[in-house]
């Protein structure tokens, strides 16, 4: 009897305690308490950090990096795509633009995610583990890359290296020079000691840090608003990569972008790993560009009919240049090359699909024909078959390079050329890239600004660097096909209005 009473009281007490319990852990997600308990989890954390690179495959190539230049136009085709892309192309983006804010958020997201990951490592018992230390350095590299993007696109901003979020104490304003110096210091340390000489494909090593630092130095005149004093540094860094790393120029330009470029890739130092199944970063280049090209490229090659290249840019390739195959132009056929691909045009007629190099519409920017413009086929030069298998739609299987060995050679050449326009070494380096794999074009006999910029255009078309190149060569504000010259200097984007509203410490860039 007494026992029963005690049990009853115990049950009541237990019920009362559990009856006020509101602490519920998420069933399907990890918390700070349940994550990073074993070493292997840090690789999953690192995977989460690398997936924030997806901004490269979207905003940085197709919107602000390429879509604001002479290599790419995202026209409005009827009402399709009507909106931000045309403003970006015409350099008329204003601070309230939604796409601009997305871009700023995505770059900032890399910074926040890497800061958090670094803080998790610093608080962990695995922080002295050598493998984990390398992962921490990789996160620092990605953070430096995001800040490089901030310097390059937005100029000033904030400089945050802590993971804590405190809305009552918003980050202080940092000038372009301050952020530049941070990126320089970080990359120098990463290139000198913090990153290993080799790493798994898909992860960065010290040579990636050297290449990004070379890129920063090559543009330092622009970023610091003075004559470039770092050209010798560019030569030193790129020479180290050329002499001491295992990276080299892939003899096949096609292979660098092919469906199997994730295997035996000797050229890419820093890549965005994309698979047509399972990766957060996706290669949308076909999706963003193609109309219905299923007859030619397979059942998933029906895209959103967006980006096209401009006629002058397309014609900068000699017809013999094997790299011209990265654009899909003219009448389209089945893989046999004979049977025409018949589609319905804007007038409702059935006829052979033709991607017209010269836009046929009266207003190519704001009301282009659905077949206007040569399309991006950089990752489809192998023809039929680089498309996603079932369940992944039109995503391509190729990884998208961010920094590759050809750029290392071209950066070295440009740094030498800028110090000595008659440099024979610079000429030889440019020809090495230009003539790769026996490309049947004539070698250059001398270098000048125009042929160097054009060669970079051909080699790195639609890889996200064109805006950076045009600004460095002073050509970003000039008129080109379908775009008038800019009155004001648009080479720095406006700080999005939403960001200034959230953080009043930010300052708007001049002219906006």
């Amino acid at each position: 009897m007494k026992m029963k009473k005690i049990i009853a009281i115990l049950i009541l007490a237990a019920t009362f305690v559990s009856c006020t319990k509101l602490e519920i852990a998420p069933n399907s997600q990890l918390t700070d308490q349940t994550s990073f308990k074993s070493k292997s989890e840090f690789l999953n954390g690192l995977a989460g950090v690398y997936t924030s690179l997806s901004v490269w495959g979207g905003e940085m190539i197709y919107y602000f990096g390429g879509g604001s230049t002479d290599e790419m136009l995202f026209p409005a085709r009827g009402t399709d795509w009507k909106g931000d892309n045309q403003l970006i192309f015409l350099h008329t983006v204003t601070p309230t633009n939604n796409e601009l804010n997305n871009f700023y958020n995505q770059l900032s997201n890399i910074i926040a995610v890497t800061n958090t990951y670094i803080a998790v490592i610093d608080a962990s018992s695995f922080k002295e583990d050598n493998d984990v230390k390398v992962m921490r350095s990789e996160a620092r590299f990605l953070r430096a890359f995001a800040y490089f993007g901030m310097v390059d696109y937005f100029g000033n901003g904030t400089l945050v290296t802590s993971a804590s979020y405190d809305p009552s104490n918003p980050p202080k304003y940092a000038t372009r020079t301050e952020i530049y110096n941070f990126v320089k210091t970080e990359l120098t340390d990463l290139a000198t000691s913090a990153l290993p000489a080799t790493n798994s494909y898909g992860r960065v090593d010290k040579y990636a840090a050297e290449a990004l630092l070379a890129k920063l130095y090559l543009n330092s005149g622009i970023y610091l608003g003075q004559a470039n004093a770092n050209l010798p540094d560019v030569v030193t860094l790129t020479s180290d990569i050329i002499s001491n790393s295992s990276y080299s120029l892939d003899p096949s330009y096609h292979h660098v972008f092919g469906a199997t470029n994730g295997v035996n890739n000797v050229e890419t130092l820093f890549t965005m790993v994309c698979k047509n199944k399972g990766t957060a970063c996706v290669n949308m280049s076909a999706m963003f560009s193609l109309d219905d090209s299923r007859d030619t490229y397979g059942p998933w090659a029906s895209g959103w009919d967006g980006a096209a290249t401009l006629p002058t840019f397309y014609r900068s390739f000699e017809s013999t240049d094997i790299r011209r195959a990265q654009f899909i132009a003219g009448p389209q056929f089945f893989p046999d090359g004979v049977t025409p691909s018949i589609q319905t045009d804007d007038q409702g007629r059935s006829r052979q699909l033709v991607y017209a190099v010269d836009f046929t519409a009266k207003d190519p920017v704001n009301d282009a024909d659905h077949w206007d413009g040569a399309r991006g086929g950089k990752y489809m030069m192998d023809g039929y078959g680089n498309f996603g298998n079932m369940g992944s739609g039109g995503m391509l299987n190729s990884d998208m390079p961010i920094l590759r060995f050809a750029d290392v050679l071209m950066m070295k050449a440009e740094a030498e050329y800028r110090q000595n326009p008659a440099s024979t070494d610079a000429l030889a380096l440019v020809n090495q890239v230009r003539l790769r794999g026996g490309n049947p074009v004539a070698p250059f006999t001398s270098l000048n600004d125009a042929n160097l910029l054009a060669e970079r255009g051909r080699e790195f078309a639609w890889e996200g660097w064109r805006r950076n190149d045009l600004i460095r060569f002073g050509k970003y504000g000039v008129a080109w096909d379908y775009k008038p010259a800019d009155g004001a200097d648009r080479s720095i984007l406006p700080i999005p209005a939403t960001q200034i509203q959230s953080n009043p410490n930010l300052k708007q860039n001049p002219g906006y």
Partner: protein
Amino acid sequence: MVGGYSWQEFDNYIQSTVATGFVTDNLGADNIGGGVNAVSSNNEEINRLISFYGRANYSYDNKYFLTATVRQDGSSRFGPNNRWATFPSAAFAWKLKEEGFLKDAKGIDDLKLRIGYGVTGNQNIGNFKYSSTYAINSSAGTYFGGTFYPPYNITGIANPNLKWEQTAQFNAGFDFAVLKSRLRGTIDVYSKKTTNLLLAISAIQPAVASTYLENVGAMTNNGVELTLDAAVVSKKDFKWNSNFNIAWNKNKITELYNNKDINYGIISGAGASGLPQILRVGQSLGSFYGQVFTGISNNAETFASPNPSILGKALPDYVIGFTNNFSYKNWDLSVVLRSQLGASVYNNTLAELSNGNRLPGQNTTPAAAELHKAGFTSGIVYCSSRWVENADFLRLDNLSLGYKIKVFPTVIKSARIYFAAQNLFVITKYSGYDPEVNNVAGNYGVNSLGIDYCSYPHARTYILGINVNF
């Protein structure tokens, strides 16, 4: 006196399997294993709501009535520091008619005074919004050296202080009946103050998310409601009952996070951009915000100023209803009128169809086609007063006419043939289909109000029917 305890747990479990490449469609979804590339996923979220409550009723002499309640609610959805909140309420009623000085008063058939005060809470947000978690999604990872790694993706910005949104309401009113109870009515005045509003705000970058939930401010709703019921005519053969109600409400935002505006709302349409609504201290919820349009000159829209300003609000000042029921012998007639005054609507449909660059190729309004012919071929400014219209209306909500018939009285107790029409007319200056719109489009955690984009209008319905009771 009553006391109670409630414990509620909501367990939301989702399991999904997607597969393609089936050999046959005949088995439908009942043999998913027969497809290839099957991908399974599931998610479980639990939230809990626990309440202790008590209520006390007291009445004295059938004249004074007092009700008091208090409840303590705990929700797992809030931050560990603020899960519990106490919500008291008290109501007092005084039957004045029962007092000696009114008991025999002629002309006053009933009179009752009511006063009440209460606080309620809102926890209508998602789960775990106070925390930062890691989601693992094996369809969005990456490869290192050819080996696949599912990622730990940080989700959300932690906000351990997230707490209950609370609304405190004070109301006072009279119920009365006069003229031998042929005129009855109620008058209520209320004042509501909502504090700790739960809104998503833009995160200060860099942050792992672009927005997060915060208790950002306060707003008030003050109003008066009047209802009158009258038996206008009450003869044996002819009856006329009339009901009139009018409600006036004024909403005002009194506090926001750092007192900063929140721009929100969604504009639809090709190339449309901008946020047409604003939350601003001193203004009503659902205020429209944009440039003041002054006309079109030289084929371009002109504005009073490049700076945007408040252009109106989506909430009405007055909501009015007027119902009349007539019966004459076997006939009956009912007419329900309803009106709203003081609200505006953003006519997104008109804006899109007025875009000068839709022609040639796409439909526009005839007016826009005329403007296009004259040379207005450019796009339009979406956030502008050009598209904000007065949405006052008077609607005949319901009209019904019936006739009672007597057939087979041994079997059928009563039968009535009737004709009813709903939404027979709307008197409004609004140029769209229907001034009463409710396109809910969420943005920045705030639902937009009064944005009309191809909303389906209220249908006009005619019904001819027979009611039969056996």
